[in-house]
């Protein structure tokens, strides 16, 4: 009898350490964050006053927040679009298991294992306006240098490209996995029927790859919303606030502006956006 009771408890004991860490460092902060967002307070005095939805109301008129939100929306849209297309192209091109493809896959994946700080340094070193190799090559070709990181639009472009570059190989691997689940007989049959490679892509590859594409899109979207570190090193959100995204704005509000409760409200908004987008993407896939 005693033995049986012990057996009943066993799984919970095995779960305990992980759950404890998880509870304290993920679940608890999430609850805290939500609670903080309804208060006014600071790091020293703690929560000082319940203000209801005042923080959220204030967000609607906060230019810095709204700007960073708009920047994030454009950034996410472009990064997701580019990274999905690029990684799918890479996966299709490197699908066959030849030696050359295997080595090329290693090459395209390599940026994924670099830390975001290293990625930021590498891109800044290439695109630095006065010291970067791109401008050095341009000027030795007789072209005038381009202010890559100091012009608003160029800086945005470089930030987006660096982000795409750092993750494309990762999604490529997922896409290759998806491609491998498509039966080769389908392509053989299509070939017999005289379908061109392009037709095969649109009629076979793309429809059968839809679940993988959805997964990649969701992962890429979440990842893009999290963007912070590469940009911090590359442009530090500048020039001005041209590349300041939501996460950096939250960081600045909380730690530089010493306003953790107001920053918490921004975090809640970010979380809500992420959940909503994931749900929408899942729903869209179910309907189609």
């Amino acid at each position, binding site marked *: 009898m005693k033995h049986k009771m012990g057996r009943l408890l066993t799984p919970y004991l095995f*779960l305990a350490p992980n759950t404890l860490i998880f509870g304290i460092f993920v679940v608890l902060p*999430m609850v805290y964050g939500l609670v903080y967002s309804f208060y006014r307070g600071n790091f020293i005095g703690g929560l000082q006053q319940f203000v209801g939805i005042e923080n959220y109301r204030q967000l609607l008129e906060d230019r810095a927040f709204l700007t960073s939100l708009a920047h994030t929306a454009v950034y996410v849209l472009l990064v997701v679009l580019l990274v999905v297309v690029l990684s799918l192209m890479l996966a299709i091109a490197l699908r066959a298991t030849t030696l050359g493809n295997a080595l090329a896959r290693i090459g395209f994946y390599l940026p994924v294992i670099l830390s975001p700080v290293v990625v930021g340094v590498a891109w800044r070193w290439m695109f630095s306006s006065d010291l970067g190799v791109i401008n050095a090559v341009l000027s030795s070709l007789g072209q005038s240098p381009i202010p890559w990181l100091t012009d608003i639009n160029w800086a945005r472009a470089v930030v987006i490209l660096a982000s795409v570059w750092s993750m494309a190989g990762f999604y490529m691997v997922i896409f290759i996995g998806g491609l491998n689940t498509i039966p080769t007989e389908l392509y053989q049959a299509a070939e017999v029927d005289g379908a061109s490679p392009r037709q095969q892509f649109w009629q076979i590859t793309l429809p059968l790859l839809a679940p993988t594409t959805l997964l990649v899109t969701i992962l890429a979207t979440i990842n893009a919303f999290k963007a912070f570190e590469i940009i911090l090193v590359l442009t530090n959100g500048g020039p001005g606030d041209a590349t300041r995204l939501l996460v950096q704005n939250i960081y600045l509000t909380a730690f530089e502006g010493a306003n953790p409760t107001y920053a918490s409200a921004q975090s809640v908004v970010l979380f809500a956006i*992420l959940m909503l987008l994931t749900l929408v993407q899942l729903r869209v896939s179910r309907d189609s």
Partner: protein
Amino acid sequence: MNKTRKRQTRFLRDALVMGLALLFLMPVIWVVLSSFKPNAELYLVPPTLFPKEPTLANYQSALTVGHFATYTWNSFFVATMSTLIALLTNSMAAFALAKYRFVGRQALFLLTLATIMIPLQVIMVPIFLVLRNLGLTDSLWGIIIPPAATPTGVFLLRQYMLSIPDEILESARIDGASEWGIYWRIILPLSIPALATLAIFSFTWRWNDFIWPFIVISSEQKATLQLALARLVGQFGVDWSTLLAATVITLLPMLMVFLLLQRYFLSNLTAGSVKG
């Protein structure tokens, strides 16, 4: 005739994709090449591709920046300890989820899956306050413990453990093995491939972590390599020659891990799919 033609096009194709991959890697290659150039050559127009007079001077100055040995040790310590904790706690949780029937199992499993989607960035502010209340700010343990409960790791290990036949566990029980003994002597040794995968990923994540130390660590002595590197960039007037060498030193361990164990990274492991 046709066959040699085919072989030629295949060779050309292989050369083309490898060439493109090399071009793709230019930002990294350029950092490595530049790190061996003397200061004067670093800013030459037109630039040299390979260093004309290769030098290790940049590495010497990188190693004397602040407490470089301390940063390196901190990074190793954090990545190793966090990985060990993750291996232990994740495998225990995975064992419970894979091999026991109990109330709330399904709910817990779904919760684990859902939380893969919660990025740290969302809880950045409150987690700082939690850590501060626990006295874990400006402590290496503050960046070791919190990320150890990776949901990705639990998921990966659980999927693997499901494939271990229950009969083995039952016969061990009949032979009088304790539940812990079953976990420690049967499940863990049989799960080594999955554990190795998690270890590699976890070490990579923790080595590359930036936001955790950025929020938690304030003193020089506790900084990790990533943090030190970012601080070098943040300084007014970047000292590129030193920074480039420091960057290469920071990426080198990961590069070696990756090149030695690339099949772990390149196998389609959607479970390890979220950088966590």
